[in-house]
């Protein structure tokens, strides 16, 4: 087991063996979560603060549940409604919280790079729960766990990431993780929703969905992020659905056993056909939610171990 990082800010900073360590531990937490008594003491005595500067239901609930199952004291701060409205800067908010001695800070923010900035100002471990259109590392890890459990491996697979790539932090984190684990990644999007220069990341770029899905093992759909658009990227939702909405016909171009993923929340009839999303033979969307809690438990457990080791070393007067 090797996991060296102080914070979990992005997949970019993780090595393949660290990713594997997280997934291996997460597998154990999946088992724990399926028991009737879902309790561990990995974070006993520790304080976890969830700071969501952007509205979130599922990710915040997932982190909260993960912390509670590990025995931490969990506090949710609805930052969007409070201090920010009063004009406090991000760094002042961070310093204020830091003075309360939390051990784990889970942060989501609408601006790319905001979580990194905050991590520089606090003494605890910081988990990025999504920053702007930059990274969403726990989502990529839970997707990897879902794929590994469905396909038996997380190497040498062809994964098509489809839809609103331009506005998606999920796409970026997944692209990096799947690349690090030596998979073949394809991005499928209308040219207006394809970020510039992505082909240089070592993935294939398609604007025809059927071509992009040809022979894929995994079809990962993205939500059309209307709230992040200042209008005009696509002509209409109906044309988007016609060209880029996943339905049975388009999916037939992928491998017969290809799985369908979606980070949620779904816009049924926009990026995915409702019936397909509910098809238990193809869709692993519900599994993704389950894996989310386990992966977050694994991440926090590993960060807490490093934090304890660091503090122990400091107390013993050892230089680290």
């Amino acid at each position, binding site marked *: 087991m090797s996991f060296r990082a102080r914070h979990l800010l992005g997949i970019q900073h993780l090595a393949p063996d660290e990713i594997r360590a997280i997934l291996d531990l997460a597998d154990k937490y999946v088992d724990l979560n399926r028991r009737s008594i879902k309790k561990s003491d990995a974070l006993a005595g520790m304080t976890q603060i969830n700071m969501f500067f952007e509205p979130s239901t599922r990710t915040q609930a997932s982190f909260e549940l993960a912390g509670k199952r590990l025995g931490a004291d969990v506090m949710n701060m609805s930052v969007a409604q409070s201090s920010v409205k009063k004009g406090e800067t991000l760094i002042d908010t961070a310093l204020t919280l830091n003075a309360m001695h939390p051990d784990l800070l889970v942060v989501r923010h609408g601006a790319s790079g905001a979580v990194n900035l905050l991590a520089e100002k606090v003494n605890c471990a910081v988990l990025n729960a999504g920053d702007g259109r930059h990274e969403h590392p726990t989502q990529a890890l839970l997707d990897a766990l879902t794929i590994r459990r469905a396909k038996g491996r997380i190497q040498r697979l062809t994964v098509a990431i489809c839809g609103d790539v331009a506005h998606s932090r999920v796409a970026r984190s997944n692209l990096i993780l799947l690349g690090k684990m030596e998979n073949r990644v394809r991005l499928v999007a*209308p*040219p*207006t929703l394809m970020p510039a220069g992505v082909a240089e990341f070592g993935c294939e770029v398609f*604007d025809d969905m059927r071509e992009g899905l040809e022979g894929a093992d995994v079809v990962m759909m993205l939500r059309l992020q209307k709230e992040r658009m200042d209008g*005009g990227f696509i*002509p*209409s939702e*109906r044309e988007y659905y*016609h060209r880029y909405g996943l339905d049975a016909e388009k999916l037939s171009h992928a491998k017969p056993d290809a799985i369908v993923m979606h980070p949620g929340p779904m816009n049924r009839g926009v990026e995915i056909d409702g019936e397909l999303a509910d098809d238990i033979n193809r869709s692993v969307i519900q599994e993704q939610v389950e894996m989310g809690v386990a992966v977050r438990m694994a991440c926090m457990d590993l960060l807490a171990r490093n934090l304890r080791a660091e503090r122990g070393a400091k107390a013993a007067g050892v230089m680290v």
Partner: protein
Amino acid sequence: MTLYFENARIIDPEAGTESIGNLILNAGVIAAIGAASPPKGAQVIDCGGKCLAPGIVDLGVKIGEPGERHRESFRSAGRAAAAGGVTTIIARPDTAPAIDTPEVLEFVTRRAAQSLVRIHHMAALTKGRQGREMVEIGFMLDAGALAFTDCDHVVSDTKVLGRALTYARGLGALVIGHPQDPGLSRGAAVTNGKFASLLGLPGVHPMAERLGLDRDIGMVEMTGVRYHSDQITCARSLPALARAKANGLDVTAGVSIHHLTLNELDVGDYRSFFKFTPPLRAEEDRVAVVEAVASGLIDIICSMHSPQDEESKRLPFEEAAAGAVALETFLPAAMRLYHAGAMDLPTLFRAMALNPAKRLGLPQGRMALGAPADLVLFDPDAPFMLDRWTLQSKSKNTPFDGQRMEGRVIATFVAGIQVFGPEGFADA
């Protein structure tokens, strides 16, 4: 039905040649060129040495459907086209409402079936031609739109334009722009200069066109879209166009027949039938643009047919509507260029038939075996005085009223069927 044309002066724009010979039309296509004798049962047409050319493919015709049927209907436009040797109309989307949804496009496509000639449609690039949101380019392409254009409305927001062009590029769609700086050209009725000052009319500097073209070329370079500039009318725009082509951008350009045959002085005593968008230019500009068509730098000549009712032209010059009907006068006006020695007939038909068809991916415009049997038989020398009340268009706003013209259409054939001839129209 097999037609045998004998003793025809055959104009081949692709080969750039003209030669006396015979030609057979069968099953809607050109079946033979140069056959010695008519096949059994064929109808023989003695051309008497007159010209036989591919029918004109007119890129950018305004028809008043939907919304302004009193100005022009598909039926009246079809007759005007047939009488003028235009066998394919590419209709503009600046209708009321604009052709900006697949539903409207399907409606006009259905309505257009009653026309004597082939009609294809272009769609607006943005909803309502308002320059704010792109139309459903994918659905419209599937429904048969050949190109996307906001016509004389310039999309001034380059972010909106950039996204629309990027989206269009992804689908391989052709976008047609109107190169005109919207600020400089605002409120202009004529071209800046001595003549405008003399008349006291608000003018636009020709630089407005260059600025518009430069911007559009920049957007093409950025997005990689296929682009056509509807009208290039000024000498100072030509080097920019030549550079864009030399740089390998997928750019073509057109010009209206009016800007090739008339100049700003024709406005004379505030004659609103000579008001155009962009306005008529100085003689030096006209000459430069004619040379650019002859050299092939400007690819396409169009009629920019714009029917206007009497009320919208019978106004003070500044307030009058712009544009002229031109389907029927297109070929006679083009003969002015031929008789003036500016270009030969194959060069003219390259710009009026072959190039527009090629740009739009249509099989028309060629004098070749297997090409669609869309032909015009005309006498390039026949003289006449134009009387606007004899025109087939519902609107009669032509700048050539009362003028001496040379060159008349004798007969027009679409898909091997004669739709216009000495006996009249096929839909009479």
